[in-house]
């Protein structure tokens, strides 16, 4: 079982990603309004919100696919609206999208992963090392010579992550990377994301509709109607079930169960978000009662 409870993580740089009063419109359609947001180096940030709340636009603003209509986005101090910085920004912050089929360009897994480093003009030995490291990080060593179309959705998505990793980014933005995967594919992709964050210290910005995935983050930002509606730890955010529902979201099933138990009079903390925490708390209560 995974342990992800109360791990204190040192965040070294305060503002690897920084939004300063950012607004964005598609024509007259305002998508984001006055967003102030930072992500520190090594932080795992989850972004939640209903469809159309502005999440994907936020993601695309980070690595300069979109530039703000007003305000500024900085990546490691570089202004995303400065075109001369764009290549460096994208080396720093890589992006993974929802549909794995749209992100794979080559006919062999290793060639796909090598695609971006080759375009950086690195020497072949360096490219080899990066590809090998990346494929190992996502656990697909056995498939390095396979054709991507023969892989499952979850494996393809890990190839896409490896392709971004080969750029050695400090931040990876993932826009609903598990939306099209089955539970097994989802959990393998989430394991990779967590490991990259905890072991390699890569900043993760995860856009998701799955509350259990967001529960793994250090911090959750909820967008609603183009504005930041909540910004706090998973515990703070999920312990208010009514608020979550009013934002078009839900709480993880374990939190729902915990809140029901509290309603039945059991003395539990209301900010339980991981199944292991609840079982531990209940076993402790049982031992105290016997």
């Amino acid at each position, binding site marked *: 079982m995974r342990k992800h409870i109360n791990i204190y993580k040192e965040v070294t740089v305060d503002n690897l990603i920084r939004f300063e009063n950012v607004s964005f419109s598609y024509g007259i359609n305002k998508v984001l309004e006055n967003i102030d947001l930072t992500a520190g180096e090594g932080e795992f940030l989850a972004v939640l*919100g*209903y*469809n*159309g709340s502005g999440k994907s636009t936020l993601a695309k603003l980070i690595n300069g696919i979109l530039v703000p209509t007003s305000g500024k986005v900085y990546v490691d101090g570089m202004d995303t609206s400065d075109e001369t910085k764009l290549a460096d920004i994208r080396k720093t912050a890589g992006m993974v999208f*929802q549909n794995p089929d749209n992100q794979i360009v080559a006919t062999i897994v290793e060639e796909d992963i090598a695609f971006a480093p080759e375009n950086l003009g690195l020497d072949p030995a360096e490219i080899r090392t990066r590809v090998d490291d990346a494929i190992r990080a996502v656990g697909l060593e056995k498939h390095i010579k396979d054709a991507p179309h023969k892989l*499952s*959705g979850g494996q393809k998505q890990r190839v896409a992550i490896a392709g971004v990793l080969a750029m050695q980014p400090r931040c990876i933005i993932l826009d*609903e990377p598990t*939306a*099209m995967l*089955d*539970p*097994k*594919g989802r959990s393998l992709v989430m394991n990779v994301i967590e490991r990259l964050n905890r072991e390699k210290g890569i900043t993760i910005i995860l856009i998701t*509709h799955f*509350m*259990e995935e967001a529960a793994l983050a250090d911090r959750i930002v909820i967008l609603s109607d183009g504005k930041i509606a909540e910004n706090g730890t998973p515990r703070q955010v999920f312990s208010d079930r009514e608020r979550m529902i009013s934002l*078009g*979201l*839900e709480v*993880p*099933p*374990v939190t*729902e*169960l915990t809140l*029901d*138990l509290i*309603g*039945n*009079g*059991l003395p539990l903390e209301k900010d339980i978000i991981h*199944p292991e925490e*609840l*079982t531990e708390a*209940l*076993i402790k*209560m*049982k031992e105290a*009662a*016997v």
Partner: protein
Amino acid sequence: MSTLRLDNVGFTYQKGMPDEKTAVSGVSLTFEEGDFVGIIGHTGSGKSTLIQMLNGLLKPTTGSVYIDGDDIWDDKSKLREKRFKVGLVLQYPEYQLFEETVRKDIAFGPKNLGLSDEEIDSRVREAAGFLRIPEKLLDRSPFDLSGGEKRRAAIAGVLAMRPEVLVLDEPTAGLDPRGRRDILDVIKNYHEAEKKTVILVSHSMDDVARYANKVLVMNNGTLLYYDSVGEVFKHALELRETGLNIPTVTGILLTLRERGLDVDTDIYTPAAAAQTITDAFRGISG
């Protein structure tokens, strides 16, 4: 009265070729009228192949599919008519929207049945009503709708055919939590109002537990379980071994039981789980 029965059904892709692959084999079961069945199984378990045989999109390479006692492939001249009894909503059905307006899109199927304009209109209204598509959206282009609305419009197109059995392949994939709840709630309401069979393919055990009364589990192309929700989730440990997720709360109850707390484990909704845990504690202190 409409039942859908499978007798020893199997399907092999590329049959007779060097790369032939058996996706489904030896499935025998009956979908009773009015059941709400959740189909689960991981990718490659044969779920999608199975449901494509339910309405004749794929012809079984072995065995037979019966609707109301008739083998749907017996008399090819009647295949079309039989197929209409089973409405199939494929994954990401909104990709199949193509008409100028939502109204025309929903009307497309009934129109091909050669129904009168009046009848078509009433079916469009009925289907739009079930899917909670407001009147004002009906004359808009389907491409102007939100993701969730598009999907509901696509499902309405299938309902407008008034199928006896409605089959949906992962209707909530890619939607946000509210969109997921909306879709599942309209399907539930349709099921309760019409008492017709609904078959829902889902990756979410929590959703299946909440909405279905029966669960069908596919594993490696064969039928692993087909029973009431409570009975199937009694096999939580076996399900876990085959790599399937079990409902979150069932997993918690199993751990609690292993650790010596006297709780029921054939439970799959948070509310029921809260009850059995509370009862267990009353047992200790009382």
